[in-house]
């Protein structure tokens, strides 16, 4: 199995979720994160004193899928999250050794 971890713009979350559902994905986990990258944050103004804030609001998606699906998942996310603008985010793929469904104790593919 693979964990596909994507950092995307918050606005794109629903589109990405739909794209993954279309692939038959049944679960994923989302967190609010702050991203630092090429897309520069605005200059924050604190009582008139400039303050450079480089952390921008992003959303992180973690979804574990069978290895065979991983490439299609990456592709689907890339398409759905794309706006063509700097700061669209990244997708990373990491190997997962084991998965368990807490409710039933089912393992690996059955657990997803």
């Amino acid at each position, binding site marked *: 199995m693979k964990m596909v971890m994507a950092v995307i713009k918050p606005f794109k979350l629903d589109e990405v979720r739909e794209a993954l559902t279309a692939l038959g994905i049944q679960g994923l986990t989302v967190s609010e994160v702050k991203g630092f990258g090429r897309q520069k944050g605005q200059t924050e103004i604190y009582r008139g004193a400039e303050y450079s804030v480089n952390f921008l609001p992003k959303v992180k998606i973690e979804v574990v899928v069978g290895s065979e699906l991983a490439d299609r998942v990456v592709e689907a996310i890339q398409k759905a999250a794309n706006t063509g603008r700097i*700061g669209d985010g990244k997708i990373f793929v990491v190997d997962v050794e084991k998965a368990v469904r807490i409710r039933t104790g089912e393992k690996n593919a059955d657990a997803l």
Partner: protein
Amino acid sequence: MRLKKTLCAFLTLAIGMIAAHPALAADPPKLDTGDTAWMLTATALVLMMAIPGLALFYGGMVRKLNLLTIAMQCFAITCVVTITWVVAGYSLAFKGDGMLIGSLERFFLSGVTLTTVHSLAATIPESVFIVFQMTFAIVTTILIVGAFADRMKFGAMLLFAVLWSLLVYVPVAHWVWGGGFIGGWGAFDFAGGTVVHINSGVAGLVAAIVIGKRMGVGKVDMAPHNLMYTLIGASLLWVGWFGFNAGSAVAASGKAGWAMLVTQFATAAAALAWLAAEWLVKGKPSVLGILSGAIAGLVAITPAAGFVGIGGSLVIGLASGVACFFACASLKKMLGYDDALDVFGVHGVGGILGAVLTGVFALTSVVDMTDATTKQAIPGGLIDGNAAQVWTQIKAVAVVCVFSAVATFVILKVIDLIIGLRVSEEIERDGLDLNLHGETVH
């Protein structure tokens, strides 16, 4: 007070404690410290409705990335309309005898002193009357921003507030309260059904249509970010509305107490009516539902508060809760406009309903005023056999709807031409707080 100024000069109020005769130059007005105390307080309460009331109410309903933007709009309008009101708004709304617009006699408040009074509020300092009326202009203008939430340029919004407060709010206030033709018809509007709620509700509808739908609406999760803010805001609106409605008696009088009582009752009824409707139709009673119902009730009782009885206020409350629920849940979907925070669904629909039902349920005994020419009590509405009042109310509603719609449309189109109304797609997607104001919440 709060009605037909042309009549008003001839009226003597039945109860002794409000001596509403116009101040004569020779006869120095006798201020009443109790009335003044209440109106100072009422003014503070209505200001609290604007900030932080509406800032919280609206702020809690948008997405996190646009929260500061809408709260900032509320704050900035408070500042802008304060200026426009002092410079010319007060004078044009409440001075002079024009049918259509007042005079510039009080331009920049010239002539106001520590001892002057306004003829509509003869027992309190004119300064208090000015600021009290100013807070109404502020609240009305702020109400509109809910319609174009999440997509308006800040500069365009500022310009809109300047123009709309002077070109739309001021004339309507003059027509209804300041001596203009709608008051002359004898229309009842105790605290602003037409002037405040229909006016802002219709303006909101037009603004929502002119500026267009929010990007991603219906596809992207636009659930309210913080309903606790909305609940605090709605609560402060309710509390502050005592200043709005009971303050519209412009005296610490039996009429003020009455307005407070029916306001409280209608609001509770409306909140529970919306809750019940939603529970039945959608299966769950929601926080946003009960809050919206309360606001709907406050809106609908506003024109009626000084005119209707307990029974009338109950009907107005229940009807507005249900009607506004369907306006927001069904009408909006049917018609397909994106009035983001339901300014029209709550203030437009609630205001129209309240204004018309005031003509139905006004009681002669609550109206409690004598027409000095005929020496007769001014009659209540349909329920007291005066069906004509309903027609008067409908005419008033119609005029305000049409004027507000047209004038708002023109103002927005002009602003769009000059500086553009809407932020870029990228800003809308990434959030307005950071892009317009360089700040985020949390």
